[in-house]
């Protein structure tokens, strides 16, 4: 599946029909908030979180926050 993973530069927002741009997006868990650089539609704000980030770094931070 990872070989099929959509790469950011090929993604467009299907609703606004414009390419995504890198921007700071706040993500939060269990009361902690972090700004993260993510691709995001400059118009409607839909974001892209790649599989690798969700299952890697984000999962790791989730575990750390859960044990805090």
């Amino acid at each position: 599946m990872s070989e099929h993973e959509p790469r950011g530069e090929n993604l467009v927002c299907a609703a606004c029909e414009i390419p995504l741009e890198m921007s700071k997006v706040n993500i939060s868990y269990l009361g902690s908030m972090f700004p993260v650089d993510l691709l995001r539609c400059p118009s409607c704000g839909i974001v892209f979180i790649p599989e690798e980030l969700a299952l890697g770094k984000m999962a790791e931070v989730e575990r750390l926050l859960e044990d805090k």
Partner: protein
Amino acid sequence: MEQKELRELESRCVQELPPACTAACPVHVDVRAMLAEIGRGDFKAAAKVLKRTIPFPGIISRICDQPCRSVCRRNEAGDGLSVAALEKSCLDWAETVREKIPVLPAKGSRVAVVGAGLSGLTAAFDLGRKGYCVVVFEKSGHPGGSLWNVSEEDLPRDVILNDLRILQQVGVEIRLDTEVGKTIQFEELRGDFDALYLGCGEQPTGSFGLAFDGEGAVQVDPVTFATSREGVFAGGGMRRTAGRQSPIQSLADGRLAAVSIDRYLQKVSLTAARINEGSYPSRLYTRIEGTAPLPAVPMADRRGFSSDEAVREAQRCLQCQCLECVKVCEYLNAFRGYPKKLIREVYNNLSIVMGMRHANKLINSCSICGLCREVCPGDLHMGLVCGDARRALVDMGKMPPSAHDFPLRDMLFSNSEDCTLVRHQPGKSKSRYLFFPGCQLDASSPEHVKSAYLLLAEKLEGGVGLMLRCCGAPADWSGRAELFRTVLREFMAQWREMGRPQLITACSTCYEILKTHLAEVPVLSLWEVMDRLDVPGPRHPDSPGTVAIHDACTTRHEPHIHASVRNIVQRMGLTIEELPLGKEKTECCGYGGLMFFANPELAGKVIERRIGESPADYVAYCAMCRDYFASRGKRALHLLDLIFPSAMDGEDAATRKGPGLSQRHENRVHLRETLLKVLWGETVKEKEDYRRIKITIPADVREAMEKRLILEEDVQWVIDQAEKTGRRLLDNRNGRFLAYHKPRSVTYWVEYSPEESGFLIHNAYSHRMEIVEEIKT
């Protein structure tokens, strides 16, 4: 958990207690560690262990009366270890290095020791190290006392003199040819010194104003070695009138008296916290059964072991320890501990105010199966500790949400209107019995639920009702006490409404939960009912000849269920092979306590361990046990597969993989619908729109979804939302869409492309972190 409770629990784990040899030794030489070093051929390290406790190792290793040897557990499988001879070999075969003895700064107080025998010299050495100014008064012309009575062959004189040189290192002064009571007066010593130790080896000249017992020995407190006069202590031969001399006991007397003298001079309690001093029997449990007997290694030269002989002799040491629970539990193995150590980690984890809770995984990984208690000499149940800790974490709001999120949602789904059903037998208005198959059998083998229900309805008088739902075990296991009570209340209300029927459970966990928490509800196991009804008939021609029975861990204390299951299997003409751990000592399959969700890697190891115990086909009577074994390629049958072989439709039931997570949901829903339609002639409501979205999931994607605990309905929900709102990303390269949605606590991502009549799924993943920004509409 309170400190007191922690101590009580800790005290029941004997693993850290000293072995019998060390406890029997009045100065507690760490014999086990010393022999381990010799066994490795490291004589230097072994000598270091010995010297930690024994100031005069050359002497002691030649004359010790070895109280350790008679209690050595090796006696039960061969001969007890030759500990003294091995001590001597440490000195013989280690390169001799004179270690520097650390001496504390001078304290100013002066101690007189009367008699330079083993007890007096040990007291002098110990007090010298502590910084006291010590003077030994010896009436003869050489130190050593009765050591000089030992034959020179057994104890060469240079060994005595060499060992005693250590006294100079700690600043002890020895005045020879000075007899107290003759050369120097006792009262004079009392004036010159702050404390006195009498270790004359025999009764001294004159009474020194001390009290004596009826047999003429100086009256000495058995714990503190204090005499009737303040600041005067006595030990060694002085407190024994008759009986065999014990060199190691003399040494111990000197040591314990030195502890008292130090305390006396520091003006602290002489008696506080003096437990386990001297020789005592150890409570350490060590199982000897199954240990091959080994005789003592003979010495070619009677003066001592060669280095090779010593290594072989030391290797006979059993290295006594308990670890009974660790031997049988993959969980304890995985956390590299034994209950005493792990319970402390649990306690610390609960006591943390700020900082990381490192033991959350430890607490959540236990299957709570209770096998540890079955094999524990102290009746300690690690699962109860973990269960309490989980409830405490939930109470504090510190339970990691991800650990039990899926099974709890699964439970709520099983108890939702899509899956629950309570009905009297068709055509009856009363139920004497109520069949309660349990949510996992509903999910795993809905066909068997139907067959078993029809059989019970046919065979039992008085009406057999049916109840489909979950007993609440996931709430209990995950520490959600309040949620668990709610589930039980709902259950009770439905049971009462059915006229308080006799419950018949197919699931052992339901059986245990109801029996433990709802004493009012009379509960029977399906297996005892089937056994009583004499079902089934002769065995199916395709069934295997010999099977191994895997007892469910929740039936551990239900021998009548074990018996019924075996009766049923035997009646089919099958031969039963008992697994090494069965019945009250059965192992958990990896589902118990929600281990599979909190720690899937560990659950995998648990399954592998269990299925590796016999090549025979396993027969389980819990749906999860069977499905878990089959998931790893083990030929495994559910007891109902044997009772209702026709349901299998020609497929080999033993190799059938259990349904995936989505299918399990689907099976529960479908079972309810089918039974309502077929047996009760009721119509069921249509599925919600999003559940009717047609999706195609390739095998590799499905496998990833299973691992990631993502259900088809989660995927359908994301697509439904994306298609309705248009909020989705488009990959220009391949025309695929990517969308996310967060129905509850988890955000699901689905990569998909439209197909003719539905959607093809390319990938699905999830995270728990929340995207704070909303999408603008």
